[in-house]
């Protein structure tokens, strides 16, 4: 399996490399008991062989220098975007303060249904005097969901459903007051943030930021391992 994989990888080497080394490489492979690391090593060396063509050395140097700049710029951009988005997720969509958490806990307790405590049920909240409706995943009952535009002190209708996947049959409908919602909700988020993927779930902002930072890390590895400049050893005297 590993040998077969390595044989396939050898076919991906540049033509000039294969003309010169393929036969002896495959012969050496016959004698070798390869490890998985050898497969990775062959893959990495194959990429390197494409980037390090000795002939056309000047052109290669220029190409490599250009690639270095490009990858460095991409690293800088990705890092900036990732850190910026992470900061945005922290600052623009701030976590509730401890006071708010207390308030919201009280609120959620106030609208806790009288039946069906099973976490597999979902909840929906409908405002009594309007048709606005908020769906709440019971398992992920989140203070932020309840914060959306609830007029303070209004009576809402709470409906408990079976889980969405099982058809969403209503199990219970009851009217409960929004007792305990005392915090201002309108200033919680700037309006321009509405409509972005991060409106409802802060974690989305984190996830995207982490993916971008992951890309930056990958580019750094590429930059250092394949596009790195050769180091000159300089010895200090004692």
């Amino acid at each position: 399996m590993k040998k077969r994989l390595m044989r396939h990888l050898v076919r991906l080497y540049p033509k000039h490399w294969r003309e010169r080394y393929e036969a002896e490489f495959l012969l050496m492979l016959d004698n070798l008991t390869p490890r998985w690391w050898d497969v990775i090593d062959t893959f990495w060396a194959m990429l390197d062989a494409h980037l390090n063509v000795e002939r056309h050395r000047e052109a290669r140097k220029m190409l490599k220098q250009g690639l270095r700049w490009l990858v460095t710029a991409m690293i800088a951009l990705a890092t900036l975007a990732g850190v910026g988005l992470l900061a945005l997720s922290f600052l623009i969509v701030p976590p509730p303060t401890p006071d708010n958490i207390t308030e919201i806990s009280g609120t959620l307790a106030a609208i806790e249904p009288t039946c069906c405590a099973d976490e597999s049920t979902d909840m929906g909240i409908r405002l009594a005097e309007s048709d606005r409706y908020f769906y709440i995943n019971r398992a992920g009952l989140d203070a932020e969901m309840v914060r959306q535009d609830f007029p303070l002190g209004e009576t809402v209708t709470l409906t408990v459903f079976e889980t969405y996947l099982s058809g969403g049959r209503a199990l219970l409908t009851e009217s409960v007051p929004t007792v305990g919602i005392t915090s201002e909700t309108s200033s919680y988020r700037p309006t321009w943030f509405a409509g972005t993927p991060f409106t409802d779930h802060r974690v989305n902002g984190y996830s995207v930021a982490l993916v971008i930072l992951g890309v930056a890390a990958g580019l750094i590895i590429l930059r250092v391992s394949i596009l790195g400049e050769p180091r000159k050893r300089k010895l200090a005297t004692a």
Partner: protein
Amino acid sequence: MSTLDDFGRFSNPAMLILISLAGGEKHGYAMIEDIEAIAGTRLGPGTLYGAIQRLEERGFIQALPQEARRRPYKITASGIEALREQLDSLRQLSQLGLERLGES
């Protein structure tokens, strides 16, 4: 003059190959075994041939005619010179480190 420092990440594998070939002509698999025996590290096949390619292009090693489908390599005069320079440099580094440790 070109040195092994120009080899980037292939610098150490190239030095090990030159040390191996300094002990006599060898083909690829024999180099892997010899290097494992003398340095306790097993070069991956991709790394080995990446380093061999660079050494050959710089004229530090030379491919010999095939023997039983295998192609042995030998170290050249400029390869010996580059290896000597590299080992001298390492000796100075080692000496410096030992002096700082108060062991010399």
